[in-house]
């Protein structure tokens, strides 16, 4: 018997632990063993993780197990396996969670390079999952295709929280520098330097996964030395389009922005990544998108020089960091561009934007979408109307003088403005909806009244309803 297999030796398929019956042994990893289990009526399949103990157990594996036992029970939502039970770490350590059905990104990557549309779809689903963690003050720190399961509903669940950071709990790994800080191909530059409290580290890893999906290759290879790892502090990856000509400029822009060595230059929130991947026509292209070479030697040397002095940033909660990069959506009624309430809505929007630095403003207009009919003539007329409303949106937002990268314009066609706004806000991680209250005349119109109140009642985020007081109103 291998001395490292004591756990397996102790717990065999068919044995029982705290009312759970061990089924098939499905994995032997650095942390320990994984079995399928039954014994509790949860309505979903379950697995039990058992740490390796005794001789042959690695300190790193135990700490990873302890970290996961700490973080996972505190997480909720569709992007993580549901927690079922945990044994006392002092007596019988184990962790029972949902077995997430689906295919791992690793399996999907066997077909890589994936078509850009497919890479963007999966990347957006991964960004959704990452954003959900960050909003819970958790940073995964070990994102890789192995740890991402695509569920049958298309959503993506993250597994393996052995390296994760939860801002509410003591960080057991903070001072364990002797252990690996993540998986070499995916780890961010700041993780290489020992920082564990920056959510933008996950955005870097997200960029590596996107790169891999789009090109079939890893941007920094698989370095095996610390020196090799440190290269990413200053070296550019080969631009994705050089490796795979099918990668469009907008996707290269998104990937390279995620992979910026300096976290300040990356996306500041995974929600922004998801937004860009879902709205390619709204990605503002910079020189990143057209790069066909790595930066010149001198620039890389300068970056290397700066990287020597890189150090950890002061601690802020992941959620507050992400909140500093809000997605703000303003609903503009482009059907009534001269409405007296438009300036008030503009002022309110400008006021909200002045409170946050790294915002993204989404201007949305909902027009009556009666034309769902087929036929080229109809769709041309529709796109003509669409363009007209985009122009009006642009005109509306122009006085705010926003740089293009902060701005995104959308005309939605729907018979129900309320539903269209709510759905758009939800699927794009909108943090704040700004919209006008109905005017006195409109209060009479039932559907208009329902937009402001319906959005306010049913939105999952904050809503700012802008109202102009009636003259003489007290």
């Amino acid at each position: 018997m291998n001395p490292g297999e004591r756990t397996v030796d102790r717990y065999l398929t068919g044995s029982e632990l705290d009312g759970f019956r061990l089924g098939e042994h499905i994995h032997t990893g650095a942390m320990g063993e994984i079995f399928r289990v039954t014994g509790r009526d949860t309505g979903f399949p379950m697995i039990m993780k058992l740490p390796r103990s005794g001789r042959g157990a690695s300190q790193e594996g135990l700490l990873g197990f302890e970290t996961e036992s700490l973080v996972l029970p505190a997480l909720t939502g569709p992007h993580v396996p549901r927690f079922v039970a945990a044994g006392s770490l002092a007596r019988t350590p184990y962790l029972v969670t949902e077995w997430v059905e689906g295919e791992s990104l690793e399996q999907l990557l066997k077909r890589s390079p994936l078509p850009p549309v497919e890479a963007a779809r999966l990347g957006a689903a991964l960004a959704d999952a990452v954003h959900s963690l960050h909003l819970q003050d958790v940073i995964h720190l070990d994102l890789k295709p192995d740890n991402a399961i695509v569920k049958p509903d298309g959503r993506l669940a993250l597994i393996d929280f052995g390296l994760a950071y939860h801002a509410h709990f003591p960080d057991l790994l903070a001072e364990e520098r002797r252990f690996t800080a993540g998986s070499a191909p995916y780890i961010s530059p700041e993780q290489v330097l020992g920082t564990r409290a920056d959510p933008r580290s996950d955005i870097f890893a997200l960029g590596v996964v996107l790169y891999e999906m789009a090109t079939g290759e890893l941007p920094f290879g698989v370095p095996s030395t610390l020196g090799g790892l440190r290269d990413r502090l200053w070296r550019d990856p080969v631009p994705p389009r050089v490796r795979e000509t099918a990668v469009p400029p907008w996707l290269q822009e998104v990937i390279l922005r995620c992979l910026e060595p300096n976290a300040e230059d990356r996306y500041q929130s995974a929600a922004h990544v998801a937004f860009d991947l879902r709205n390619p026509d709204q990605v503002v292209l910079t020189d990143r998108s057209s790069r066909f070479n790595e930066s010149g030697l001198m620039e890389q040397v300068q970056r290397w020089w700066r990287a020597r002095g890189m150090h950890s940033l002061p601690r802020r909660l992941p959620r507050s960091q992400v909140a500093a990069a809000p997605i703000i959506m303003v609903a503009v009624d482009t059907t009534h561009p001269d409405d007296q309430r438009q300036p008030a809505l503009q002022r309110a929007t400008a006021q909200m934007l002045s409170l946050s630095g790294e915002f993204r403003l989404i201007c949305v207009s909902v027009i009556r979408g009666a034309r769902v009919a087929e036929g080229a003539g109809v769709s041309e007329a529709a796109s003509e109307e669409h363009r007209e409303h985009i122009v009006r949106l642009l005109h509306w937002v122009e006085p705010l003088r926003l740089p293009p990268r902060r701005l995104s314009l959308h005309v939605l066609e729907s018979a129900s403005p309320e539903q269209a706004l709510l759905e758009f806000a939800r699927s794009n991680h909108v943090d704040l909806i700004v919209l006008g209250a109905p005017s006195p005349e409109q209060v009479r119109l039932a559907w208009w009244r329902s937009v402001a109140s319906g959005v306010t009642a049913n939105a999952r985020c904050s809503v700012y309803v802008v109202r102009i007081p009636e003259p003489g109103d007290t």
Partner: protein
Amino acid sequence: MIIALLSDIHGNLEALQACLKHATESRAGRYAFLGDLVGYGADPQKVVDIVARYASEGAVIVRGNHDEALARTPRYMNDSVRAVINWTREKLSKDAKDFLASLPLCVREDEMCFVHASAASPERWDYIDSPSAARRSIDAAQATYTFCGHVHDQTLYFLAAGGKASVFSPLQGKEIPVGRHRRWLAIVGSVGQPRDNNPAAAYTQFDTAHERITFYRVPYDHLAAAEKIRDAGLPLSIAHRVEKGI
């Protein structure tokens, strides 16, 4: 069971009452007072009366350096603190002084150790102001959980593999799992004189069954407490500290 851990009340009646109310509402089943019942605040007698009543009902109480100073003012205390100690000595009944003098320096109970300063040498009033100081206290406490005060900022230390202590600044009101497989030292915060620019009273709860610790901040009428300090003719700097939480 939930144990409410209160330290460094420093004669602040309003802050104590707010924390006790908060603890009662969260169904605390036991109380531990980790020293420095008096000093700085204007209500030493009322505070001692309340704590003595809890003691008679089985609460854990240990002695702090300010409680001890009533018997003999130590040389390290500055002028304004001396002024308060002298004033407190006059205001306290003999029973109250006897009660404070009778308190133990350290109480060990099952897997827990309660002490005002460091369990390594409680009588020296060493501050737990570094991981190494925390480790010395944890080692001497011979307990899974060590609870102390003296330092006024809420802090959680834990022993990592290899015996090194690590430090964590807790967020208020967030439950932290503190499993028995590790050893922990919690500085529970000051009820009566917080010093982190937040005037709200600080105390901590330990849930023994679920192995969880939660650090709380409880707002109270700190302006009234500061006003009383001024009215008592005590040094203005002390009233100012209570007012601003500094």
